[in-house]
């Protein structure tokens, strides 16, 4: 059988022959991930399973990023549970405090994930690593406990939707706009149980960081994974990030796709997902003028250095409008330091921004930017479900860093090209 990327990677991690979509395959995993919310439950299940050691102490990553720095006693207790487990098991990759960043920005940076890997994580945005050519997917804590104990888990081989993107992107249009547009077209259940495989000349032009942004939101279409081919850029990224042997990886010629979605990148304008679902997507021009109270730039979707540079390019020499809280959260300590050295912080501070620590924070309504009743936020995050960032009566618009920054400046949703 000619394999799609998803099938090809699964085949490498199992002794079974992968012959069709829908088949159940038992696979060995490359890395198992959990965070401060999901690890405590996984640990509970792990103990309940009678497990006494993890399958490989170098292949578990525990990242306490959601409520960091711990926002209250309960969240601190959860982190204590994770820390003690990490110590007891001798887990190499335990991250908390100053070496901790938002997990899906941190792991690629540390070289813990790469092309051809099979990664499972107790976090739905584990699919981010598809940007590097990994088969990476989210699961619940108990599945993750099983994987921590056995080093393997089962998968249903997904059928693949091929997403073919071609054309040159216009100024201020990028990876976030592409993925929002796709989700708007196929819907929040358009990829249910399936793999998305991205390809085309626009994809080849995208930076690895842009690909991570897109793969990150595959789950917002319900997909199991969103995978990019690994090319020269992926290999170069690996060499710069502790992954010297990163390989090139593409689907087999003649692989069978369930369907093909084509996107004309050249025709695309900046997009936003309107409340309260990620598939409620419109060009920003259709909602220009909606008043905002907060702009959040950060998260595992758009908290990387290229995102901060994009926001800074818009904010340079400008100020956030009165009454708008502009919150910038670099996703990892390395990104934080780099942004500082590049002078981006001066631009943000001059614009009146609050610069926070690497944390998930407001993305999931945890802390550091919670919305009151009736408040509206534009955010570079990935979910705008009702109440996700605070009050059930608040509203979140998802956008690129450029749109979020431009909107912060005017105080209303704004196309950066119109500034």
């Amino acid at each position: 059988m000619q394999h799609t990327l998803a099938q090809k990677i699964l085949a490498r991690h199992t002794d079974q022959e992968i012959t069709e979509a829908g088949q159940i395959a038992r696979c060995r995993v490359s890395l198992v991930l959990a965070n401060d919310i999901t690890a405590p439950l996984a640990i509970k299940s792990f103990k309940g399973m009678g497990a006494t050691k993890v399958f490989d102490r170098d292949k578990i990553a525990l990242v306490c990023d959601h409520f960091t720095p711990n926002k209250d006693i309960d969240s601190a207790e959860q982190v204590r549970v994770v820390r003690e487990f990490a110590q007891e098991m001798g887990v190499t990759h335990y991250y908390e405090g100053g070496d901790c960043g938002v997990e899906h920005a941190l792991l690629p940076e540390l070289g813990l994930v790469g092309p051809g890997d099979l990664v499972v994580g107790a976090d739905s945005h584990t699919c981010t690593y598809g940007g590097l050519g990994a088969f990476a997917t989210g699961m619940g804590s108990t599945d993750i406990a099983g994987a921590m104990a056995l080093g393997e888990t089962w998968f249903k081989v997904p059928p693949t939707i091929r997403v073919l993107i071609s054309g040159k992107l216009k100024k201020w249009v990028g990876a976030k706009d592409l993925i929002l547009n796709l989700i708007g077209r196929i819907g929040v259940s358009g990829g249910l149980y399936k793999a998305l495989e991205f390809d085309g000349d626009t994809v080849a032009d995208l930076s690895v960081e842009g690909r991570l942004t897109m793969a990150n939101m595959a789950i917002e279409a319900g997909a199991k994974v969103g995978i990019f081919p690994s090319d020269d850029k992926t290999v170069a990224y690996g060499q710069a990030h502790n992954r010297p042997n990163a390989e090139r990886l593409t689907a087999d010629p003649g692989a069978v796709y369930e369907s093909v979605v084509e996107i004309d990148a050249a025709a695309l304008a900046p997009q936003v997902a309107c409340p309260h679902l990620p598939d409620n997507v419109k060009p920003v021009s259709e909602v220009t003028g909606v008043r905002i109270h907060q702009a959040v730039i950060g998260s595992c979707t758009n908290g990387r250095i290229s995102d901060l540079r994009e926001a800074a390019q818009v904010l340079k020499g400008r100020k956030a409008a009165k009454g708008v809280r502009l919150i910038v959260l670099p996703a990892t300590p390395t990104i934080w330091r780099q942004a500082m050295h590049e002078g981006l912080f001066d631009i943000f501070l001059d614009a009146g921004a609050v610069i926070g620590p690497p944390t998930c924070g407001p993305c999931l309504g945890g802390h550091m930017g919670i919305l009151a009743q009736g408040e509206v936020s534009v955010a570079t995050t990935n979910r705008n479900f009702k109440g996700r960032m605070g009050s059930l009566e608040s509203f979140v618009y998802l956008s690129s860093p450029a749109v979020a920054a431009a909107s912060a400046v005017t105080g209303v949703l704004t196309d950066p090209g119109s500034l």
Partner: protein
Amino acid sequence: MSIRGKAHKVGAHIDTDAIIPARFLVTTDKDKLGANCMEGLEPGWIKRVTAGDIMVAGENFGCGSSREHAPIALLGAGIPVVAAKSFARIFYRNSFNMGLVLLEIGDEVDKIGDGDQLEVDIEKGLLKNLTTGAEIKVPAIPASMRELVDAGGLVPYVKKRIQTGA
């Protein structure tokens, strides 16, 4: 196993933030999570539920985050079964691992109204609407889940494998 209860009908794309908002994720306790079940849909929603009641939903129930707290909150709220048009993938897996029974019944979900009395017989694969008399055939649990269900969930399943060294 036969379960009788009142239907609580919700819409499509009910996400895990609606089932249990992130601010309640500072515990793994079933009862505490259950007390805040569906708090992200409507404050105080849980007050309408009596133990044994059945959740009935549109497509893509449980979309969003991987939080296993979602099926646990439903179980903690006393809801043993969810019947829906379709389920989100991670939620589907989590539910079987936790022992929450999911019935994927497609458009048949339209035969159930809010407040209807339902009876589910899992062995026979039958869901009866006692209020309207409608009978809905429930698809068999997929073979891949059967192994887990037979073992009593994922925890006992892995436990057995660790003990036998398989």
